[in-house]
């Protein structure tokens, strides 16, 4: 047996509350709720987990659960960490080291404004002794939006695109959010600014880092999510449907954006080729694409990198409606980081949505929420972390 499909995602769940909870949540609480929910969903007892994967918090979570895992991975390289965890879990299961892997996420991106972030679990590069940080910190960059904007300007310059071209990404993604009651921006009932938006809304929103207005930028919310990954013998014995990990790959081009050679290219080119090759599938075989949308530029660039569009033309998938509800290639069907939920690291939200769509559980929803949106049997998932720095790609396929 080869590496492809050596393991399956057998369940995916979220914490009870996501988005903007009225009562502030800790990151740990978000983790634990999601883990309990995915255990209930799959029937796999928490005690059967023998590998733990999280972005920086694995020892604390394992201790909290009373586990003594045989495999501990706490890779924290930004929002793509969770796709990379799935890759690592596949390898560990294939090697016979573990049978059941837990990939878990809890991040109180919203609640931390009131109760603080708590320990661990956030991406941080550089710091004291990092010459890259030293040579960028004097210049007024203020987080991710202030850097990603430079990539859009470069794309505009090289390919003749415009910020308006990219405004179609948040508009279409919002249309998907209106179909997902759990999306923060689903409707006026979920948020005062929820419901459909127009290109003018996007372009006239408050400027954050030109050319990115606020509506080109993702949300900052709470989220907890967990998936369980198991070897085939276990995956076939459960009450939930397996979603097979046909291909997986990871790569990076830089850490500090100062080192991004081509501002219109990410390592998703490399990570997706690794994943496609393992799967024996190509971009033309993908029926659903879940591409990390931290900013409008991110999924458009990523679409070019993973072969869903030619260089310079990724935005056309949205502009021409292909990525929209009813289009030929549904994308970011949960409403994305732009309109569903984005807690700081969005890779887990991608995994939960991929599982929902490919397992058939979207019929019944996750955590009781309805929301079937596609009949896709194959899906590419691409996480992007840092400043367009690190990527993890998965090619997932539904069970036969």
């Amino acid at each position, binding site marked *: 047996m080869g590496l492809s499909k050596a393991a399956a995602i057998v369940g995916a769940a979220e914490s009870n509350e996501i988005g903007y909870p009225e009562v502030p949540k800790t990151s740990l609480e978000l983790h634990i709720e999601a883990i309990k929910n995915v255990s209930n969903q799959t029937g796999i007892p928490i005690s059967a987990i023998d590998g733990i994967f999280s972005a920086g918090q694995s020892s604390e979570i394992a201790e909290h659960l009373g586990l003594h895992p045989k495999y501990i991975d706490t890779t924290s390289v930004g929002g793509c960490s969770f796709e990379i965890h799935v890759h690592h879990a596949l390898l560990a299961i294939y090697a016979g080291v573990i049978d059941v892997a837990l990939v878990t996420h809890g991040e109180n991106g919203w609640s931390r404004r009131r109760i603080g972030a708590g320990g661990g679990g956030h991406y941080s590069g550089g710091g004291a002794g990092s010459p890259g940080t*030293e040579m960028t*910190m004097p210049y007024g960059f203020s987080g991710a*939006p*202030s850097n990603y*904007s430079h990539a859009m300007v470069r794309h505009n*310059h090289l390919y003749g695109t415009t910020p308006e071209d990219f405004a179609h990404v948040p508009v279409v993604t919002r249309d998907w959010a209106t179909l997902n009651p759990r999306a923060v921006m689903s409707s006026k009932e979920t948020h005062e600014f929820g419901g459909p938006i127009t290109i003018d809304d996007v372009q006239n929103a408050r*400027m954050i880092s*030109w050319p990115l207005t606020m509506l080109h930028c993702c949300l900052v919310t709470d989220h907890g999510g967990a998936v369980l990954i198991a070897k085939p013998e276990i995956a076939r014995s459960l009450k939930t449907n397996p979603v097979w990990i046909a291909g997986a790959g990871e790569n990076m081009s830089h850490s500090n954006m100062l080192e991004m050679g081509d501002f219109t290219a990410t390592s998703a080119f490399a990570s997706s080729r690794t994943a496609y090759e393992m799967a024996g599938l190509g971009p033309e075989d993908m029926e659903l694409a879940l591409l990390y949308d931290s900013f409008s530029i991110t999924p458009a660039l990523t679409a070019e990198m993973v072969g869903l569009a030619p260089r310079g033309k990724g935005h056309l998938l949205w502009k021409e409606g292909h990525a929209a509800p009813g289009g030929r290639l549904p994308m970011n069907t949960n409403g994305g980081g732009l309109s569903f939920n984005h807690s700081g690291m969005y890779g887990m939200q991608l995994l939960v949505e991929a599982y929902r769509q490919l397992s058939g559980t979207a019929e019944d929803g996750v955590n009781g929420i309805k929301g079937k949106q596609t009949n896709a049997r194959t899906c590419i998932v691409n996480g992007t972390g840092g400043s367009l720095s690190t990527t993890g790609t998965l090619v997932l396929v539904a069970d036969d």
Partner: protein
Amino acid sequence: MSYNKPIPTPSPLTQPFYDGAREGKLLLPRCQDCNRVHWYPRHICPFCHSMNIDWIEGSGEGRVHTFAVQHRAFGGWAEEVPFVTAYIDLNEGDRMATVLRGVDANDPASIRIGAKVKVEFDQASEDIHIPFWRVVEE
């Protein structure tokens, strides 16, 4: 007026850069084995992995690679919005980050990728001078 923006703390690795900056020189690390200039300063050449790195005086000239206009910032920079950040392709190779001068932040369409830039230094503290780049006429 005292400098109210973030001031870097040199390490032994980067100290020569600030020693040069104090004299108005843009010093750049160059690998003695492959001859290539890199930025930021490293313990090892990112191109050939030699550890024989010295400092050369750069031309202080380059071109705008890409830019953005910051409308939201923190600390001392919050008082400056909108301002233009940019990445500069150095004539010697590799790239530096900066706040770009000599441009109109309220008219981003007038800012040109590929524009020629020259370095200048601001004294941030007694010992630290910080390079900024200014668009100049061709």
